[in-house]
């Protein structure tokens, strides 16, 4: 996974509280066998003029030219609530979102973001940058800076920081302990031979 160091991008404002995972990716959009092919379904219920259609609704903020390449999303409180489907994080990541700034997150969604290379940043109230002005996020210093020089600092737990900063997913992180795991399995195989096939 791509390492997260410093990110500068316009931030697309989608300031609604309780945006749930079904709004992020409606279940009707989850027909694919794989984790990919979901970006088009991102916010499908809001993004297109018709259910199941693909005609962009010009009023929806993601469709506005100023935000065409936004990699930061500004959200409302309790972002990512609802079903624990990981497709929500997959769809956001595939679309290109690398950071979400919101007053608060659903904990499962937050974990899914971290595992998929998206930095969830809890700041209340969110820094509403002047329209279409970029924000800069520095993970190492745990700060968000806007073009006017205003600075917001944010909290992140060490493990999430290590994963995002190192471009590691959960498997990479665990595999750093591979030797310990294999030693544990070797001893366990002797103690519980019946558990091994």
């Amino acid at each position, binding site marked *: 996974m791509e390492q997260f160091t410093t990110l500068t991008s316009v931030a697309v404002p989608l300031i609604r509280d309780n945006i749930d995972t079904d709004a992020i990716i409606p279940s009707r959009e989850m027909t694919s*066998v794989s*984790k990919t092919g979901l970006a088009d379904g991102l916010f499908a219920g809001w993004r297109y003029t018709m259910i199941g259609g693909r005609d962009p609704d010009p009023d929806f903020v993601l469709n506005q030219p100023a935000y065409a390449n936004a990699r930061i999303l500004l959200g409302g409180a309790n972002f990512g609530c609802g079903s624990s489907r*990981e497709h929500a994080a997959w769809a956001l990541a595939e679309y290109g979102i690398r950071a979400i700034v919101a007053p608060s997150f659903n904990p499962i969604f937050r974990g899914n973001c971290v595992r998929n290379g998206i930095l969830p940043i809890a700041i209340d109230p969110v820094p509403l940058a002047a329209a279409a002005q970029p924000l800069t996020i520095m993970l190492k210093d745990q700060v968000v800076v806007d073009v006017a020089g205003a600075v917001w600092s944010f909290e992140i737990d060490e493990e999430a920081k290590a994963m995002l900063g190192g471009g590691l997913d959960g*498997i990479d992180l665990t595999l750093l302990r591979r030797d310990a795991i294999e030693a544990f399995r070797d001893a366990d195989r002797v103690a519980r031979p019946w558990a091994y*096939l």
Partner: protein
Amino acid sequence: MTTVGRTIFEKIWDRHLVADLGGGTGLVLIDRVLLHERTGGVALESLAAAGRAVNAPTQAFATMDHIVDTLPGRTDRTIMPTGTAFITATRQAAKAAGITLFDLGDARQGIVHVISPEQGIVLPGLTLVCPDSHTCSQGALGALAWGIGSTEAEHALATSTLRVMRPKMMRVTVNGQLAHGATPKDLALHLLARFGSAGAKGHIVEYAGEAVRALDVEGRLTLCNMATEFSAFSAIVAPDETVFDYLRGRPFAPAGDAWDCAVVEWRLLASDEDAAFDAELAIDAGDVRPMVTWGTSPQQAVPLMGQVPPGTSEADARALEYMGLHAGARTLGQPIDAAFIGSCTNGRLSDLRRAAAILRGRHVAPHVRAICVPGSTSVRAAAEAEGLHRVFLDAGFEWREAGCSMCFFAGGESFGSQERVITSTNRNFESRQGPGTRSHLASPETVAASAVAGCIADPTVLESL
């Protein structure tokens, strides 16, 4: 130093703890990973795409259950337009990863939570995970078995471990004996009605007490199956002679010396007398009546003899409207359009036998579509060996190939909108069995009796006719 007793959960957790990761999270050794074609193929493909291998392929298994057709003479083709892709992708990925696949046409194929005990894949004291919420069923064998997400499945496959937030512990003691006519399914629904569908939120539930010990393995599987409807992390029952007798000689169970040494260890798994739980619930089994749900949450259940309760919340009102019922309506006598026997809750041989006992010499009501879907191909074969299929067919039931079938709507076959279905499955959510369907959860006996009566009916009354 005082010694503190441990629960069965703690014994299994301690034994599998590779590292304490802090914050209540442990790196836990995973003994078995099970996959099915709806979520397993995704996990395997994504793992391969990342260039990772399955660490212990001999301890991983895959089956075809969710999307495969259950119509006789089935092939890879499905009614769901994109279904075939899930089947072929899972087949190829399982083959490439070198894991055992119970494919279409394999005598061992079936619903993952039915075949795992059948094949002796789940064993007491093991950790077992599957990207499916009803994995909790398998705690019936004394294993720590729980449902996970797709990325976690990849993690378990690649590393033989999972990062797990340690759950709290709850004991649910069922004292006394189940009355005549009350089944394990009724017990599960009784618990949900009484304590609510958030009643065990985040806990590993140990089912204990005389009535639980008296259940056979299939009954325990039914009880543990609905722990996810109870919002539990999972459920577990202390393994005993009933479990050992069930497992002895199963294909993937240990044999010879390994079996003997396993049983010695399994006997030590029961929670210690002085073990402490974070929460305790107790009920009297004698209070359990045959149950049926009236709403769109499994907790919206009442005794068959009862009435739809006066709604107390907006959710109740919405459920009533969806179900086309009103408060005070009697559940008995509600006309049904369809009856479904099957699923990982109640699709095992004993379920089919008890339903067949009611159907023998009877016929389903003319307007009712009745379907029986054995939980596995070996359940189907065993039922046919006893002639049960004849009973179902003669009674006017369809007799299907094994799978999840219409337990849930995958995008293909379903019951009709606003059709009232009496079903032996575990979820009565809106549109669970197809867009707009109205599902009433009940035991296989109640489903069979209702199919015959053409309306929700009490099997104990039918029995005496």
